[in-house]
């Protein structure tokens, strides 16, 4: 069992770093969404994460931090990614309880609860060419690393790597969910924007824990 803990401060930093990465890549995200969607994913995510930033200092517990972040995404992003990312974070917050630090394992359980909420909301399966195709393998890799005795540092690195691989794997897929599905076969050959912004979640975490 890993000794390292994820503190309130670290998770606040995670959200801050995520916002920074999204902002940095918003043009790129919108370009990806132009090819198989409606050219707003970058603007959507940048608007939402910027709104999250205005609240991260207020939280005194991890559940409050994550729930508030999730609700903020829901009420500022709209579109598809608002309810989905919002649900992910809200369900994570509901799973942690009112704490100020989390074990690597408990953080993994919270992520899993978040993903389940997201999948229930989005009615997605793996292989539909959505953010789930990055999130699910990332969580699996994270859990597997911890089970293999890796520390948080390595587990997050493994998750980030798996997320990136999952994201890359969306490129040849034919979309079955979301706006890209209207394109049918023409959706193949393009990387999914949501899978891309999901990968940034793990990049951000790796950055803040120094993985």
């Amino acid at each position: 069992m890993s000794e390292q803990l994820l503190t309130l401060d670290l998770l606040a930093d995670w959200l801050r770093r995520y916002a920074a990465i999204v902002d940095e890549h918003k043009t790129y995200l919108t370009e990806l969404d132009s090819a198989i969607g409606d050219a707003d994913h970058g603007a959507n995510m940048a608007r939402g994460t910027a709104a999250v930033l205005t609240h991260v200092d207020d939280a005194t517990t991890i559940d409050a931090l994550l729930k508030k972040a999730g609700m903020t995404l829901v009420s500022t992003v709209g579109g598809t990614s608002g309810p989905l990312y919002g649900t992910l974070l809200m369900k994570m917050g509901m799973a942690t309880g009112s704490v100020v630090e989390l074990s690597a394992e408990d953080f993994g359980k919270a992520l899993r609860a978040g993903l389940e909420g997201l999948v229930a909301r989005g009615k997605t399966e793996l292989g539909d060419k959505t953010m789930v195709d990055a999130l699910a393998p990332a969580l699996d890799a994270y859990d597997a690393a911890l089970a293999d005795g890796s520390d948080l540092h390595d587990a997050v690195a493994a998750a980030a790597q798996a997320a990136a691989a999952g994201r890359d794997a969306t490129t040849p897929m034919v979309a079955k969910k979301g706006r890209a599905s209207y394109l049918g076969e023409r959706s193949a050959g393009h990387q999914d924007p949501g899978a891309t912004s999901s990968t940034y979640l793990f990049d951000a975490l790796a950055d803040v824990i120094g993985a």
Partner: protein
Amino acid sequence: MKKLINSPDDVIADALKGVEASDDNVRVDHANRVIYRATPKEAGKVAIISGGGSGHEPMHGGFVGIGMLDAACAGQVFTSPTPDQMLEATTTVDTGAGVLHIVKNYTGDIMNFEMAAEMAADAGIPVETVVVADDVAVQDSLYTAGRRGVGTTVLLEKIVGAAAEEGQDLGAVKVLAQKVADNGRSMGMALTSCTVPSAGKPTFDLPEDQMEIGIGIHGEPGRHREPIGDAKSIAKQLVDPILQDLDFTGSPVIAMLNGMGGTPLIELYLMYGEVVALLKEAGVEISRNLVGNYITSLDMAGCSLTLVKADEEMIRLWDAPVKTAGLRWGL
């Protein structure tokens, strides 16, 4: 990017100021980005709200007023509004008789309206939802997010708005809404892409001699592209898939030939002439029609055709008075 705006971030807020200044039928809640009727409906009548991403004007804000919507929630450009907005609108317009949510079938819209409806139900407000999914360009509904909601939305808002106005209860209004949704079909095409303000360039590239067939209203690329044909052949590409999907003979039909935002009216009239000729050949009789910009996609050049298979009752409700910025007659 050539647009009459101050900055991409301020488009919605600034446009709502103009709506407020120009449209006597409505008042605007700028904080929540909801457009309400200037004078609320009398107590005891079903209220109707809709909403969606912006960039489709006059839909939905331009359809708020007597005989149509009670409120419209304005999202960011091409982005569904948030549950907060819809909950606020639902709570505000409910007169005690419940609220109908008119939702276009997009993953985002469905989820956000769903969350709002859950919260409204929690607050004790009876909410019914109708989902419009009329775009025949989306073929394999099993392998997609389902058909997009497009032009039928406009005709549905008019017909159902009239039913609510004359005092039909929530159950009846919901049944009618579903009937209109079930009997509406649309098909669209584009000569050019639109440009989302925050993206700053066209969503897709379309060479000078190509058109995109089967587009939606968000600059999503269509089903395929091909060389630009003449109006007659384009009309056929709109009419055929609609008639293949539903039999429109033997009933009165309401038709809408809709411009995508950048198409001049002279071309819409011309296209309507071609469409009517084809429908006549196919034995379809048009009882009522709209030709113009009703559900647009920013500055996209192109058009869409919507047919709703109606009955006498739907035609009666269509003819009922309406007073909105986008549709007006009898008042």
